[in-house]
């Protein structure tokens, strides 16, 4: 694949990954978001959903490449899409901190405009104790935060120079944590909804499929290359 084609494709992937955010901003600026019954809840779910979707997209690349060797070039976008998953996860976390937990943006901004940047901190101090309590008390927040921390570690180690410094094997070992992060994300969803609400079944099915594809591939590879019969050590 030519260099130009790769650049073009990269731009396209960037645009696709940014499209959900662009839509959200458009809803906000057009005033449509204000008409939604619960804008905060909407943004929370929207950013959470897109974290999972982008994460799944990055996890789909390996199975797709294995199915169609001609699509091998997709590997160049895996890390990029994975970083967007971290991006949406961070927006999701920011929504929780600044919109969900009661951070009074209007008051903070009024203070800022009046020349008191400390208003930003004051608001932070007001919500901080409640948020700590929330995290300590609620397992769905804990598992979500855990997933975000995993993605943070992967994002921090994503630059090429760090990959080189770590060595390919180590880097790969660390980045296998993405499976754990994806599972934690789905568990986060299950623990959030009320008992008996099975809304997360769709994302669970997709993730299961993505993980099974890997298991099936490994099993098939084992079958194709017969393991050598271990030679019995001659006993005395």
């Amino acid at each position: 694949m030519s260099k130009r084609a790769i650049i073009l494709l990269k731009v396209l992937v960037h645009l696709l990954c940014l499209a959900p955010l662009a839509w959200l901003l458009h809803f906000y600026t057009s005033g449509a978001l204000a008409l939604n019954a619960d804008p905060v809840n909407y943004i929370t779910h929207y950013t959470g959903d897109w974290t999972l979707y982008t994460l799944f997209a990055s996890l789909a690349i390996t199975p797709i490449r294995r199915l169609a060797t001609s699509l091998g070039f997709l590997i160049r976008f895996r890390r990029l899409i994975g970083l967007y998953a971290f991006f949406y996860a961070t927006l999701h976390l920011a929504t929780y901190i600044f919109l969900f937990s009661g951070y009074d943006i209007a008051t903070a901004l009024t203070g800022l405009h009046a020349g008191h940047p400390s208003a930003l901190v004051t608001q932070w101090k007001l919500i901080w104790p409640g948020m700590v309590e929330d995290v300590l008390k609620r397992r769905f927040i804990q598992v979500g935060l855990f997933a975000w921390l995993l993605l943070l570690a992967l994002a921090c180690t994503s630059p090429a120079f760090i990959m080189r410094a770590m060595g390919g094997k180590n880097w790969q070992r660390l980045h296998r944590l993405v499976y754990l992060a994806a599972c934690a994300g789905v568990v986060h969803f299950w623990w959030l909804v009320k008992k008996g609400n099975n809304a997360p079944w769709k994302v669970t099915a997709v993730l299961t499929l993505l993980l099974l594809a890997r298991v099936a591939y490994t099993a098939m590879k084992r079958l194709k290359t017969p393991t050598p019969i271990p030679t019995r050590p001659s006993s005395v």
Partner: protein
Amino acid sequence: MLLRKSPSLEATIRSSEITPQHVFEEHQHSRRRFLTSAATLGAAALAARTIPSLINPPTTVQAAEQLKTISSKYTLDDPQTPLAKASTYNNFYEYGTDKSDPSHEAYRLQTRPWPVQITGMVKKPQTINIDDLLSYRPLESRVYRFRCVEAWSMIIPWDGYSLSEFINFCQPLPSAKYIQFFSYNNRKVMPYEPSSYDWPYREGLRMDEAMNPLTLLTFGCYGQVLPNQNGAPVRVIVPWKYGFKSAKAIVRFHFTDKQPATTWNEADGDEYGFYSNVNPNFDNARWSQAHERRLDSSLLPRNIPTQMFNGYGDQVASLYTGMDLKKFY
């Protein structure tokens, strides 16, 4: 006086050419379903699914029937939640678990005829029809705080009369200590009803709670007949309890001497108690109940402190004297 249609209107549109409202809605609905399923084809289209509902919030735009109401002493100065929000954000799991589902799905419900059963410990079990129930007492327009267990709240004008008036009509036996509400259940009308709950939806109150004048037998909101997704044709509103206690689309009132089974208590008893009084000092496993997000017309969230008994302590706190509200949550 003989009422005549305008001749010009009659000349242009014959009644046979007018699409009946239910056909129109059915069509709109299937069209929307088709568009949604087609849109899921692409990854980017995942977003497209949410756009129509945002740009054009789903509202069951029916020529809502106005109700004749009288004023009430129960009013609030807080800005009211717009009807468009109150009727598109509903927990009504019979129609699906998403809060936008009821506004899309509840159009199938036919609210006439609607027989209402009075059963259990009453002088005479009987069935009455909804219109008799509706016209039994003048409808008051009462503005109440509505607090969901999910830590959001609305300000809604409800139209109805005190449940106590209806209970007196039922003539319960002195042995009756509780009242249980049974909601309508029909899979044909509710195709997306999750099978993970034991339907029909049931709720209940202790008799003294039910007799409290605040407890409203509700037929309308915003001066109109209740939208289906808000619990038409008749529901109760118990403003000092979390929203799920206020059963919708009631078909049966059952009087009993034992604490009745209630749907959410059965589904998850650790989180949803029988009483479920609004209590900022007692957290639910999922949501801190100390604050609530007030949903009105503002875009930015207004997180406000939640009041004990949702601010109705003066009228209801005495019902629970001597009770440990952390035990009887």
